[in-house]
């Protein structure tokens, strides 16, 4: 307890001194379900309005009864007599048993259709299929011929929305993949393969995040979906497929990177680094953020991250590698060439 309190005091102090370096996903709209950009999210919103209508009405009726009683059935001052005792009424009670039953039935029929509409068990034609693997606390997106982290890119054509069909797997504990504007959420469960159908109808950047508590940094297991015109997407994908650039100018940094335990966890295709525990760094610089969206991918942030990730994402699975300042600079110089 004492130690706990000291810890607490420490963290209070720390909060005064250090704050997370300019955090943030590049400006993206609030992940609100009220601004859907795909069919599943549309369906959900329609059902929501229906619910608001029906339940709102029920709520009003009951509130009206309560307020009627509160306003009209007060005890008059000085009146000590008891009111008429009414023990019940079969027809009235029958009414408020049967009418709610009917309402429930209607609600059930309407929403059951929604379930079968949204929960797709096989990919729609022409859908882009990606394998999503939840790790503590970052997302891996496996496109088949390459893998990336935190930012899911999807192509979008002028004339029709893009279907996204995700296969969800977990490397450790339960996570949940949630993109409110593109559809519902589905849990990502170890030892089980789930699927999720999303749809995006408008180019743009959308955000969401892990929705199932998965430990320490659950709060920062963020997701970004970049829906871009097909040509742009193809260019991006072509770049992702390439092996890492090998720039002589940063050989020193590369040497340190390969010599350090980095390679046990990270992959840089084209080098000996082939760890699968952590994000693939082959095209690190093509990402806008690092640490699964906790900070923007700027040279400063990158340096701070490699110096000690625990300062930025306390508790995350990457330890401080105890590199010297110079080594960090060299490594980061190398990392910055991985476009």
């Amino acid at each position, binding site marked *: 307890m004492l130690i*706990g309190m000291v810890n*607490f005091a420490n*963290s*209070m102090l720390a*909060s005064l001194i250090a*704050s997370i370096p300019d955090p*943030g996903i590049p400006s*993206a709209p*609030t*992940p609100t*379900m*009220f601004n859907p950009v795909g069919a599943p*999210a549309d369906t*959900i919103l329609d*059902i*929501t309005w229906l*619910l608001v209508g029906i339940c709102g009405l029920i709520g009003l009726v*009951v*509130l009206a*009864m*309560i307020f*009627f*009683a*509160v306003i009209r*059935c007060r005890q008059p001052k000085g*009146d000590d007599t008891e*009111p*008429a*005792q*009414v*023990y019940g009424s079969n027809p009235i*009670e029958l009414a408020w048993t049967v009418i*709610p*039953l009917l309402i429930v039935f209607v*609600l*059930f029929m309407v*929403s059951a259709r*929604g*379930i079968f509409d949204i*929960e797709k068990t096989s990919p729609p034609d022409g859908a882009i299929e990606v394998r999503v693997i939840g790790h503590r606390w970052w997302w891996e997106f496996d496109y088949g011929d390459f893998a990336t982290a935190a930012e899911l890119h999807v192509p979008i054509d002028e004339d029709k929305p893009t279907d996204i069909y995700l296969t969800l797997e977990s490397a*450790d*504990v*339960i996570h*949940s993949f949630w993109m409110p504007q593109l*559809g*519902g*959420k589905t*849990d990502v469960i*170890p*030892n089980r393969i789930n699927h999720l159908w999303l749809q995006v109808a408008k180019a743009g950047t959308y955000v969401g*995040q892990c*929705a*199932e*508590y998965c*430990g*320490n940094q*659950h*709060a920062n297991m963020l997701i970004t979906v970049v829906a871009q015109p097909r040509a742009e997407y193809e260019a991006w994908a072509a770049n992702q497929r390439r092996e890492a650039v090998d720039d002589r100018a940063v050989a020193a940094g590369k040497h340190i990177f390969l010599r350090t335990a980095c390679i046990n966890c990270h992959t840089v295709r084209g080098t000996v680094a082939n760890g699968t525990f952590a994000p693939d760094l082959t095209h690190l610089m093509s990402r806008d953020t690092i640490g699964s969206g906790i900070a923007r991918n700027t040279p400063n942030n990158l340096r701070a991250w490699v110096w000690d990730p625990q300062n930025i994402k*306390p*508790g995350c699975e990457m330890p401080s590698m105890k590199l010297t300042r110079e080594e960090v600079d060299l490594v980061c110089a190398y990392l910055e060439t991985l476009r």
Partner: protein
Amino acid sequence: MTVVQQPLSPAGRVPALSRLHEWVATTDHKKLGVMYVTAGLLFFMIAGLEASLMRWQLALPNQSIIMPDDFNRLFTMHGTTMVFFVGMPILFGSANFLIPLMIGTRDLAFPRLNAFGFWLFLLGGLLLYFSYFAGQGLQGMGSAPDVGWFAYAPLTERTFSRGHSTDYWILGILLTGIGSAMTAINLVVTILAMRCPGMSLMKMPLLVWILLVDFILVVVALPPLAAAQCMLLFDRSLGAHFFDTQAGGSALLWQNLFWFFGHPEVYILILPAFAFSSEIIPVFSRKVIFGYPLMVAATVAIGIISLGVWVHHMFAVGLSPLVNAIFMGSTMLVGVPTGIKMFNWAATMIGGKIRFHTPMLFCLGFLCQFLLGGLTGIFLATVPFDWAVSDSYFVVGHFHYVLFGGLVFSIFAAIYYWFPKVSGRMLSETLGKWQFWLLMIGFNLTFGPMHVSGMLGMPRRIYTYHTERGWDLWNLLSSIGVLFQIAAVSLFAINIIRSLMKGAKAGDDPWDAWTLEWSTTSPPPPYNFKDIPVVHSRRPLWDLKHPDDPDWKYE
């Protein structure tokens, strides 16, 4: 009937030590009841404090007042405490105190078992909090469990939860659970076999009926949790693989077992609220409860249906559409008997002559807020909507409306109503009304905005958030609301202490009520009734006060 000869109240001063001994060694249902409720209220303060710390951290974006792992411990301890060490003891405490008095008997069927149940509960609670000292083993730093109140596997497995904090979570709840099951059995026996002459099942006060159903739920719903926790314990200490996904175990099995207990559990928590309201609303409306038989039937229906809806906590785990649809149906169905209750309470008030004393105010608060919480429950039961907001702050909003707006409000109502019986003194109406309005404001300010932030995409159990997400305003409002709540709860504490010291004398029947507990003295003597009463109707004191127009003519 033999009359127990004992002095009404021990005269003169009793030394502190023997007074303490009297409490510790007691098997008197009234003393145990008071101890349960007091312990529950103390745990409420602690858990409320934990919640306040969380709200402080979340008030603004990007704060680091509380480190992520500390935050995770806070919500785990807050949720666990509120459910197992606030809701449950207050349920058992009030049942302990009230049931023998209301059914006209002198104690529970097994008084010593009753005391044992209480001490198991207390031990469990202390064990849970002891983890703050010893969670990592005695040498290392201690700390509390950080797995969430439903402790999803495999996060609770040894691989992801080192040290002993999760073991404390298991053992603390296991012990309390065993105590609760025993006490529930005890109370069911008491209700079934020890009613005073004339009190047939259909002449029991509604409170007793509702709690009877509640205890039967406890008896069938707690053992599955105990079994699941034993399995988890074996996983953690003997290397078993029940929930160990790396060795073929299943994460979904834990979810199924937990919610098979967990959903009935939330009804176990709300039924006492229904029970209190079913006594208080009629008394302050001066009208007999509307539709007693249907209320009983609805209670039984709620009890039965609640055993078959647990999958609604698992709509997002990727079960087949058919399974989801079936459980959506069963979940919505539970709204019907609950609705019957709402309507019947409203009908009881309509045509009455309502007196707005504090207990009634809290009941009105309960009615309005539980209505909202119940309706958002129907929202959540609708699977597509649940996919949108499951595990978001919308859910947090929903369950605080039912748990705080429902359960805790009615607990306050009950305390204001029965405190005179328990202590012989009235609580201050002025302070009570202040508390009520502050709590109304604070509660709605805290938990209303949560529905919005949830629909704006804010997941629960996050220790911080970026400002770009657009949740700042809603979180700030939530946190400001807590200040009102702290003020209200503090007023409540002051009110209790003040009344114990110098509250107005209550008399035997300050509310002009109708059930048997008001026919004995306040506080009741150790033996409750000099003569075991004989009743002829559901409202024996009504009969007594209106001999010309007794209840039994109409029932």
